[in-house]
């Protein structure tokens, strides 16, 4: 099982990217679980055609010890297993502690053992603002962290903060940095700025996504781009990114898998 956590500034396109990467990995024949780690509980909404997944914390709040694993699991596009940690009403409680409890509940109820995913994707709220949001990068959770950023200064600043947190935690046995993902907003010197950031943290830009109108159009249809426009160039960008992330985490792709043969993925020689 390969476990990947994705961080990045709020609004940078984490959930959209993670959902499309999940769909792309599933297309390769992998069993994928996507876990939204955000109180908004909307990480997997595109994989579920706009239908909400009941959040772990809401269910726990309601059912207490009667909570069952199947209560919090929903299956989305391409068989992606969808989970949402959820959190308190804005302004109350403790969202960070909520992420910890939700992930512990999932583990306690055997989510990884029962569903046996090949890949688990943690889609984490904006920044590592408190201990709870570092939970997905702690020992026993993600193997690698990927940070999504554009060339906008605020996004780069947030990405630097996250990379700094990963750096600070390296002697704790936490997940290491897998690389940066550039989600283009077509701002000046975009590639150069993100490459500089990667240099500063001794990592690399492992994938680049174009600023495509198709992403928004797919979102309008409450679907992932992978489902709406599977033959477009953008879909191939997601496939390439998915493959790269998977490989960085030690995944080995079968070159002759069904989907590869179908021409969606151009395997490197």
């Amino acid at each position, binding site marked *: 099982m390969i476990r990947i956590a994705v961080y990045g500034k709020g609004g940078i396109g984490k959930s959209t990217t993670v959902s499309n990467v999940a769909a792309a990995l599933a297309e390769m024949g992998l069993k994928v679980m996507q876990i939204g780690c955000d109180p908004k509980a909307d990480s997997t909404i595109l994989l579920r055609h706009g239908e909400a997944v009941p959040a772990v*914390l809401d269910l*726990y*709040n309601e059912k*207490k010890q009667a909570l069952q694993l199947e209560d919090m699991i929903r299956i989305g596009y391409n068989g992606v297993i969808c989970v949402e940690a959820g*959190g*308190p*009403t804005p*302004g*109350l*409680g*403790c969202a960070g*502690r*909520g992420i910890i*409890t939700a992930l512990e509940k999932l583990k306690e109820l055997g989510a990884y053992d029962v569903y046996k995913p090949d890949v688990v994707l943690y889609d984490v709220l904006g920044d590592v603002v408190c201990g709870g949001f570092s939970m997905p990068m702690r020992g026993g959770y993600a193997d690698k962290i990927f940070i999504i950023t554009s060339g906008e200064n605020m996004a780069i600043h947030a990405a630097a903060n996250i990379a700094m947190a990963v750096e600070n935690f390296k002697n704790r046995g936490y997940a290491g940095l897998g690389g940066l993902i550039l989600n283009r907003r077509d701002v000046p010197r975009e590639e150069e700025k993100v490459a500089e950031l990667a240099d500063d943290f001794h990592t690399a830009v492992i994938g680049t996504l174009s600023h495509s109108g198709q992403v928004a159009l797919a979102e309008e249809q409450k679907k992932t781009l992978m489902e709406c426009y599977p033959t477009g160039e953008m879909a191939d960008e997601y496939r390439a990114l998915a493959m790269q992330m998977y490989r960085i985490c030690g995944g080995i792709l079968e070159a002759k898998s069904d989907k590869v043969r179908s021409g969606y993925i151009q395997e490197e020689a």
Partner: protein
Amino acid sequence: MRQSYRMIPVYTADVSGVCSALYELGGMTVMHDPSGCNSTYNTHDEIRWYDQDSLIFISGLTEIDAIMGNDRKFIDDIEYAARELHPKFIALAGSPIPFMNGTDFPAIARVIETETGIPAFSVPTNGMNDYVYGAGIALEEIAKRFVREPDRQENRDPSSRTVNLLGVTPLDFGPQKNAETLKENLQKYGWQVMSVWAMGDDLKTLQRSAEADVNLVVSAVGLRVAKILWEKYKIPYVIGTPNDWLAEDISNALERAATRQAEPAVVYLQNRMQQEADITLVGEPVTMGSLAAGIEKRYGRAARVLCPLKECADLLGEKDKMVLGEEAMEEALKSAGIIVADPLYRPICPGDSIFYELPHVAFSGRIYF
């Protein structure tokens, strides 16, 4: 290891201080906590627990309630109980968990007060302060909310000698008989004690406190109330515990204060011996300071106080010292020849010192009571 306690206990925490201060006033005190604060309070800190009823509650906060911020459940539980029990007020006291997730107690108190019509307030406790802070603020809230404007006569009777005792809880004074001794010691000098904050008197009695000529702060817990009653009703105050040896001096200071002839006086810090102390007292600054002053007066031997409680610096004299933590206290006691302290201090006192036991509920709990 400066913050660790290996041999001696820590003092009663702020949450228990709130419960202790409000115990006899007919209100409902609710600790917002899973249960630890409750069991510490009733098994260690409260000597009245099995003999005298009081509406002390614990919310039974759960992990998921804390995460989700289920304030409504907390409010509903309190309102349900309040509608059955008709408390005179509702006091909310926080613990470490609501402190960490930023529970808005003043807002919750406002909601409860609006929905039940019962006066409600909160005390900003978090389990990380000592009882002086919690009990002091709890009584301060009572002073702010409940003490009535006095029906002052234009020409005050110059022979009137009425006083309130502020800061009397079992945490510092043990059982009720000790509070009675304080009253008797003042009555000997013609003082009529109008109210005792807050042992042996009910809320109705405390509400009339502003009619007194003067206030006497008998422990650090009472200082906040004294300041409020001075600000609101210009009742002067004096600081000191009227033990057998100091009651006369305190009576004189009360007289001067009642006729507005003096600034607030810390009686036990006046006319003290200048030489190095050969007797060391450990504990709450007003009670122990008054005892130190009494010892000097009675036996002519210099005494000092080592104070292990926070926020008490203004209540200490030149020879006295604030000492926080076991390691620092052990160090400070190394030079002490004669020590007066709670028996549980003995393990960190020099082996060749002479030790006089003076149990303090806020330190050793119910062991000696």
